[in-house]
């Protein structure tokens, strides 16, 4: 049959091509099988890892920041549980609506709302945004219960830093704040990248930030593609930052703070033997608690524009001419330069250098002065004379031996070195020749000489302790490890020279006649204090004014008034504490600064642990309580 034949020919072709089709299909399935082998056997480990990377999320668990306490264990920087609500933008469908619902439970200010919406736009969707903080337990519980109706909102317990003493310790402790980009660049600690993580921004918080910060823990959680945590796989708990014990006595600090209220002032109280800072106050200050959450523009401006500079830690960062408190140093320099301390200089109230006349604060003159009297009366003419004779470099060298010009890196950042002028210094700084008149000014702690209250207290301590080179210490221990400052070379003061200076400073306070600060002597029977007043001039007094009479401080505007300074130590018999005080534009050191220092010293002595013990024992019953 023809048809049949034709059918058989097309069947033959069909049959061949069917086999070919089968072959193609077999080959194609072979390709699929090979690909599966490639993916699932050869590259299994790589894909397994990628799958784990997908599903396992390592979350950093921020550590609790270490506490800071005073020397007796009073917490001065702690943590408190902060109930808050965070928003995960990618899980919230309609942020505005969610916020509306939340605002029925927690009040959300318009400002906060704007901030949240702005952050939602700006940040990647997986970055949580804090919506509300510091909720009450009731509010927090209510949000927890309603969580299913508030998509994207998560209740969260954070720890926030709290400074129970607020401004009283602001300059010492500093505060914590959000991490700046520059800090991330310098420090590769992954904790810094956590949102809401805080680092020390100032004070001890910054100086010992690494130690206080602690060590991050990790939590491995399984998450789904939307970032929701399905279960926890493994947790490695964080380690709290080291507890930091300060050398401060909070009771004394508080007393000092209260005593300085209303002034722009600074006080540093130091243990003359080990350099421990018992109190360090700079007034006025700010509330560090407010800095944690951030200040408003207006709040910030009012702090910056305040004439009393509340943001500056005057104790270590305020630079002042030391005035007459520098005279003990000049005296030491003179003795070591071979000046006979018993030699007298006649003070007529004026000192002539060429055409220039240098005045003593005592217009009518002190008469013949030896070194002891010079210190006691704070006679300017005496010190003009010796300064001129020994030269500026001898004064500068001695100042450095007392610690002036030193930058103390003791855990509170921002310590300034001040200026210790010398011939070389002036050449370098002003490209100018040193003038003898400038030496005279330096002799009374004026002119180029600039120092901080911390330098002054160190100098006072070195005078008091017989010349041992104490350096300030404010952090006693960290995590149980006692910090001992590196010892300095002994400045090698001659004991007889120190004795003369100590004697002069003793008379300042205890000589009824002529002692510039006799009125500010201690009121504790049997306990005496040595000190040196200083009144640093901040304006030039013209010749015309000399003629008509120098304008009294209280008739000048505040900025033009003299700085009142005072350094002291006690008890004279067995020196234990040194104090430096400066009251900006306060007037006379003797009249304004010394009485405050006296009150503080009495308080310090009253609270001296060793002395308290002595009082407790009935051996010395009659000493009486200082009040």
């Amino acid at each position, binding site marked *: *049959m023809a*048809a049949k034949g*034709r*059918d058989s*020919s*097309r*069947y033959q*072709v*069909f*049959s061949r*091509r*069917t086999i*070919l*089709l*089968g072959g193609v*299909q*077999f080959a*194609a*399935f072979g*390709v*699929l*099988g090979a*690909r*599966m*082998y490639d*993916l*699932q*056997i050869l*590259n*299994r480990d*790589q*894909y*397994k890892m*990628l*799958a*784990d990377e*997908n*599903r396992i999320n390592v979350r950093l668990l921020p550590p609790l920041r270490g506490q800071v306490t005073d020397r007796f264990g009073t917490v001065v920087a702690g943590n408190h549980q902060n109930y808050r609500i965070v928003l995960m933008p990618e899980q919230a469908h309609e942020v505005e609506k969610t916020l509306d619902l939340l605002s029925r439970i927690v009040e959300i200010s318009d400002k906060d709302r704007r901030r949240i919406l702005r952050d939602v736009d700006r940040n990647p969707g997986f970055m949580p945004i804090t919506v509300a903080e510091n909720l009450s337990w009731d509010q927090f519980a209510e949000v927890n219960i309603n969580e299913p109706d508030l998509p994207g909102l998560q209740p969260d317990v954070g720890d926030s830093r709290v400074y129970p003493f607020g401004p009283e310790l602001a300059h010492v402790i500093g505060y914590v704040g959000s991490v700046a980009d520059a800090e991330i660049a310098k420090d590769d600690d992954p904790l810094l990248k956590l949102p809401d993580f805080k680092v020390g921004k100032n004070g001890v918080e910054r100086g010992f930030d690494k130690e206080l910060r602690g060590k991050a823990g990790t939590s491995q959680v*399984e*998450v*789904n*593609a*939307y970032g929701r945590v*399905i279960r926890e796989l493994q947790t490695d708990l964080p380690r709290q930052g080291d507890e930091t014990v300060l050398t401060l006595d909070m009771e004394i600090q508080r007393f000092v703070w209260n005593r300085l209220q209303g002034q722009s002032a600074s006080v540093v109280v130091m243990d003359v033997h080990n350099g421990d800072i018992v109190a360090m106050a700079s007034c006025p200050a700010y509330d560090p608690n407010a800095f944690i959450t951030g200040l408003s523009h207006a709040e910030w401006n009012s702090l910056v524009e305040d004439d009393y500079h509340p943001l500056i830690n005057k104790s270590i960062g305020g630079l002042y001419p030391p005035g007459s408190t520098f005279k003990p140093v000049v005296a030491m320099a003179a003795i070591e330069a071979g000046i006979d301390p018993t030699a007298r200089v006649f003070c007529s109230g004026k000192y002539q250098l060429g055409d220039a006349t240098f005045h003593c604060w005592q217009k009518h003159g002190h008469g013949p002065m030896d070194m002891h009297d010079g210190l006691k009366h704070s006679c300017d003419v005496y010190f003009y004379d010796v300064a001129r004779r020994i030269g500026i470099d001898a004064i500068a060298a001695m100042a450095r031996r007392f610690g002036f010009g030193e930058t103390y890196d003791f855990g509170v950042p921002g310590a300034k070195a001040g200026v210790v002028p010398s011939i070389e210094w002036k050449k370098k700084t002003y490209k100018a020749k040193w003038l003898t008149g400038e030496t005279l000014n330096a002799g009374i702690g004026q002119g180029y000489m600039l120092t901080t209250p911390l330098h002054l207290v160190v100098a006072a301590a070195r005078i008091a302790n017989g010349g041992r080179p104490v350096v300030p210490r404010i952090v006693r221990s960290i995590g149980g490890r006692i910090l001992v400052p590196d010892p300095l070379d002994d400045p090698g003061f001659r004991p007889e020279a120190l004795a003369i200076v100590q004697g002069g400073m003793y008379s300042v306070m205890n000589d009824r006649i002529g002692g510039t600060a006799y009125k500010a002597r201690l009121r504790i029977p049997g306990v005496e204090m040595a000190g040196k007043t200083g009144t640093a001039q901040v304006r030039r007094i013209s010749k015309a004014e000399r003629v008509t009479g120098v304008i009294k401080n209280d008739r000048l505007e505040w900025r033009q008034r003299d700085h009142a300074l005072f350094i002291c130590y006690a008890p004279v018999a067995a020196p234990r504490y040194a104090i430096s005080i400066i009251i900006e534009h306060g007037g006379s050191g003797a009249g304004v600064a010394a009485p405050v220092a006296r009150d503080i010293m009495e308080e310090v002595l009253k609270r001296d642990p060793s002395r308290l013990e002595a009082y407790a024992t009935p051996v010395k019953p009659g000493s009486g309580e200082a009040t």
Partner: protein
Amino acid sequence: MSLMPMTGRPMRLRDKFFEFNWGFLFLLTSIACFGFAMLYSVADGGFAPWAIKQMIRYGIGVGVMIAVAMIDIRIWMRLSYPIYAIAFVMLVAVDVVGFKGMGAQRWLNLGLFQLQPSEVMKIALIMALARYYHGLTLEQVSRPLYVLIPALIILLPVGLVVAQPDLGTAILLSAAGGALMMTAGLAWRYFIAAGAMGLAAIPVGWELLHDYQRQRVFTFLDPTRDPLGAGYHILQSKIALGSGGLAGKGFMEGTQAHLNFLPEKHTDFIFTMLGEELGLFGGITLLALYFMALMFALHVARQCRNHYGRLIAIGVCAALFLYVFINCAMVMGLLPVVGVPLPLVSYGGTAMLSLMFAFGLLMSAYIHRNVEIPRTPSLLW
């Protein structure tokens, strides 16, 4: 030469039930069971919402298949052109009349199934081509005029489908049609010419592609280009497959699937989930089952004593093969992402129904394999 178009004694329904290859149905059911298992797993161990619906659909599909198989192959042959015509009209209607906003492809919603003209066309095209070549001698097949007609039969619906746009179906239609023409005995020169033209048309075709289609090609060429965007699907699919390893992570233990890193895991990417949970073993087993089904179809084609049945078997075989290959190659990152489901396994009613209908045709060809149908001279009837 008899004028009677049909030869051989008519078969009774009982005989047809005996002739029905129940082993093949068992094979299909085994494949479908993989799907049920995976859909059960996707729902975290629940028959709702996918597995149970899929089972019901498969049950209906089995009914359709048996019913189609029972109908004489000659009747299907007679219906070939009318069905093609209806499908074509439906396609035109969707393209021209259909409102884009209402979902361009949808035509009829039959509860569990949605009737898509493009799905109907897949079967209609095979039937029409089989019918056409049934009537040609080997010599006629390669004559230019006789090539033009099947070319139009294929390209007209392809053009309409591309316009929808549904690239996956277009590829499927043209490739299945090509396979049919190839086995019908079309001279190789036509294929070479078509291939050359295809290559030449690539730049033009590229211009015609939609943006998202071009993105898919870019993504295919380099999935890491945009790992969270366009490359995400394919990257996560490879991770899921690769991390499955030899034996898989265990049934219902696939992290990629269950934690939602894997997209479309109950539809187009179901093979990935299978590979993740059941490993190379599971994947190869399923591919082996598919391969057995393909071999059965080729076996039917070679057993058939009528040309129409042979070509129907080839058409069904080619369609099944293309579905499986394109889907698997896509999830393995061997082909760009095209929306082609894995037959009988992916969740979805329309594809399931048209497939089971096609298997019914295959089975009808098998049952009536001994029926001889003379080469009818008429093109239309």
